């Protein structure tokens, strides 16, 4: 389904489909299009469609609605051989011929050429289709249609007034009144009383054009109107400022959560074990490729694939990490410089391996429906769904790691080995086994971060490189060896970045942040939450 469907008819879309499918078989025939209009649909030039759209706009029949909907969704085809026009819905075996409305089984899609329309034509079709739904019996469908009316499209006052008269739903009424108020403000002949009422309505309006419309009335010759306009503008500004602030806060937290996710694995391997792992980013990348692989295995079910990919990416990352530790890193303990160089080499090998084995090109990872779109809190403030999920996911992963390190025997052993290796071994802990498990744990978490990132960014060989520097920054800023510090550090850096960005631009925000971090490290060289006690001394 096209994207426009989703945004414009979200609440009532399933109802609409049902509605169309119930009505169409009975009345699909009887579409009266002129031969010129039909030819304009057959033409390979998109600009030619105007003729057909004009005729369809005047046709109130259900068949016309069906045709418009098919055009918008890209389900109208023309046969290359004989020029027949037919509607073929995805997955459907029966095609509906245009304009006759006959239904015939049709399977050979290779014979068909899609009848494309342009962006502006698609919007025009949407307006036409929405107009048909303005008097729909289902309030949700009606509200979707009314909300999609822009002030410009709404056009005539008479239509809005007649709609308002028959409307019982309060939210739809409010929207209609706002649209009427917008029209009223633009009306040169409006009386002062009308303008006062309009200003009062627009002061609480969620329409983006409200402020702009009110601006035109500023300093009106009637002092009562001028005062009311000022008051309404003030109210709008307060609402806008509040939602701006909430928005920035949310953006900061969600950027922070991505930083925390990518660096929490590093907080284990670098923070607790002290291994400088430059291949950390590539472990994240492997996690992201796991999501892609899972979606290849389960085509058509991106949601299930994503959920299954979360534990799978932990396993992939963990196994890769264990292998890395056993084969390379264990031989380099206590030699940070060699570790750095060796793991940097491994990161390049992993990148090129993905390029050679899979492809140098990015892979398309689908976002399941629940990860798309916005969660509307108020009319002009909403949260993007994918970010909300990732924020929750980040907190969940953090809780899991924190519990593992502080509530399980493995965690106890890890901390014991990190604090004093010889004593821990003297107490019967198999230190080399603990090393492998710790590294695998950190790498597994990196893999899970990759699964989350697949929903935000490219899945490609370069994925990890973008995050490696930020991850080290977060761990060092939060305090090496302190998981809690990583959480706070990541969130603080995310917030700081987003507070700076509107004023300074993305490029400068990054630079300022880095410079600030260097200064901060001069004052607190051990980060936000330094490890205390004897263990931290050496």
């Amino acid at each position, binding site marked *: 389904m*096209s*994207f*426009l469907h989703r*945004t414009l008819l979200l609440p009532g879309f399933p109802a609409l489909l049902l509605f169309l499918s119930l009505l169409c078989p009975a009345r699909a025939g009887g579409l009266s299009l002129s031969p010129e209009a039909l030819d304009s649909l057959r033409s*390979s030039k*998109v*600009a030619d469609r105007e003729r057909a759209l004009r005729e369809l706009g005047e046709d109130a029949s259900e068949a016309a609605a069906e045709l418009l909907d098919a055009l918008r969704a*890209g389900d109208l085809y023309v046969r290359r051989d004989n020029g027949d026009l037919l509607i073929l819905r995805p997955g459907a075996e029966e095609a509906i011929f245009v304009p006759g409305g006959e239904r015939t089984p049709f399977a050979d899609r290779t014979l068909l050429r899609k009848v*494309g329309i*342009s*962006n*502006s034509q*698609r*919007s025009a079709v*949407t307006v036409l289709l929405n107009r048909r739904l303005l008097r729909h019996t289902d309030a949700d469908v009606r509200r979707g249609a009314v909300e999609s009316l822009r002030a410009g499209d709404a056009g005539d006052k008479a239509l809005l007034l007649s709609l308002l008269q028959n409307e019982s739903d309060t939210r739809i009424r409010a929207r209609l009144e706002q649209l009427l108020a917008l029209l009223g403000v633009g009306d040169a002949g409006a009386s002062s009383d009308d303008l006062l009422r309009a200003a009062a309505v627009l002061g609480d309006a969620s329409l*983006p*054009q409200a402020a*702009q419309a009110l601006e035109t009335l500023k300093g009106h010759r009637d002092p009562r109107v001028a005062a009311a306009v000022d008051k309404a503008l003030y109210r709008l500004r307060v609402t806008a400022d509040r939602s701006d602030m909430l*928005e*920035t806060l949310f*953006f900061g937290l*969600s*950027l922070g959560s*991505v930083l925390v996710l990518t660096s929490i694995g590093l907080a284990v391997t670098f923070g607790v074990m002290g291994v400088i792992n430059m291949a950390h980013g590539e472990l994240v990348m492997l996690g992201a490729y796991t999501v892609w692989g899972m979606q290849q295995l389960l085509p058509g079910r991106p949601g299930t694939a994503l959920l299954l990919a979360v534990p799978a990416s932990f396993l992939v990352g963990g196994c890769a990490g264990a292998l890395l530790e056993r084969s390379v890193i264990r031989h380099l303990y206590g030699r940070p410089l060699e570790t750095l160089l060796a793991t940097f080499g491994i990161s390049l090998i992993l990148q*090129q391996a993905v*390029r050679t084995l899979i492809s*140098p*090109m*990015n*892979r*398309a*990872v*689908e*976002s399941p429906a629940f990860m*798309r*779109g*916005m969660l509307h809190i108020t009319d002009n403030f*909403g949260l*993007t*769904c*994918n*970010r909300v999920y990732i924020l929750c996911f980040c907190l969940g992963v953090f809780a899991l790691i924190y519990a593992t390190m502080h509530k399980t025997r493995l965690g106890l052993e890890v901390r014991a080995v990190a604090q004093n290796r010889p004593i821990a071994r003297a107490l019967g802990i198999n230190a080399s086994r603990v090393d492998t498990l710790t590294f695998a744990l950190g790498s597994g978490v990196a893999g899970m971060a990759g699964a989350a990132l697949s929903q*935000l*960014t*490219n*899945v*490609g*060989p*370069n994925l990890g*490189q*973008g995050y490696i520097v930020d991850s080290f920054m977060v761990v060092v800023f939060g305090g090496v060896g302190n998981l809690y510090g990583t959480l706070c550090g990541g969130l603080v850096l995310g917030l700081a*970045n*987003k507070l700076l*960005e*509107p004023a300074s*631009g*993305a*490029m400068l925000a*990054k630079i300022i942040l880095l410079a600030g971090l260097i200064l901060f490290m001069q004052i607190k060289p051990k980060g936000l939450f330094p490890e205390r006690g004897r263990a931290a001394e050496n």
Partner: protein
Amino acid sequence: MIRKFILALLVGLPVLCGTAFAADTVKVGILHSLSGTMAISETTLKDVMLMLIDEQNKKGGLLGKKLEAVVVDPASDWPLFAERARELLTQRKVAAVFGCWTSVSRKSVLPVFEGENGLLFYPVQYEGEESSRNVIYTGAAPNQQAVPAVDYLIKDLGVKRFVLAGTDYVFPRTANKIIEAYLKSKGTADTDILINYTPFGHSDWQSIIAEIKKFGSAGKKTAIISTINGDANVPFYKELANQGVSAADIPVMAFSVGEEELSGIDTKPLVGHLAAWNYFMSVDKPANAEFIKKWHAFIKDPKRVTNDPMEAHYIGFNLWVKAVEKAGTTDVDAVLKAVVGLSVPNLTGGTATLLPNHHLTKPVLIGEIQGDGQFQVVWETPGEVPGDAWSDYLPDSKNLEADWTDPINCGNYNAVTKKCGGAAKQ
């Protein structure tokens, strides 16, 4: 007798003695990154070159000799591009080089090609403001991509406010400078232009999209002109879709997003956003259908897409072959003399003619992204547009022309002062 024996030995061991064949093959250098960040785009161009060379050999080669591809990997490392270029020209003695993608890689090899008198075919759309005697620019100049695209937005979509969003490097900076000057010449106010630069690989677009949304809600039709490069595009489009900005509200006109980039994106939320190129895979012309068929057969993967820079190499290679045949030699000076004014068919049903400024004539197409990752052409220029090396909209370069034919023979000729190297910086 002994000499014959040695010759026979050499013929029998072609694999071991590749270099000894200098006299019997014509060598063609391919300078595209096969590893590193640019491998994502450039590997395909290496493959298409191999295909074209293979095809030419099947037709009997060039001047009675077989063509031999010399592939080197500059690994997305700009100084390494210059090194590899020098290796191709001085040690491997190639007749021509097809390569480079980013402007910075081209700038880095430029002195090598000019110093060693080599011949480079550069296949990517770029920012202009350059014309070298030793480079044939087969991609679009700004007046063959940016300017017509802006015209389309203003005239056909009625756009009044513009967001110029780009990655922070030379192509977006120069392209945006030209677009800004052009918009102002069309009467767009300063307050109706919002310019935004982001670092390479920028992945958190939340605040920028929120800002663009506010900028676009002022009641005037708004569009984004995107010179965002490479990997930053996916998070950009995803955020746009998630924040509910559809192509109907604020369309994006992209100059760096083609079929290949889209093959790594789930394009359903992108339907209706725009791109301007000189070629689309979806163009329904026999030449294009044949090219796609050959490409799929060569790469053995029917899902692979074709894109604009591939067409540029197709044109560039055919142009070079024709010029060599006309000159009767692969000598660079002779080929350069022969190549200007030659025409070869392009893949969209027209012809590409090489102009004296070493740029091509190209049609400009505007396409809308479809759910299947292809573009649907919604607008095209009536004919081919001649490429202009020096933009007419920048005060520094508006008097400059490039002409590599006698008597001017200059890359930055000032038409007013009648001097070569006038106001140009290089």
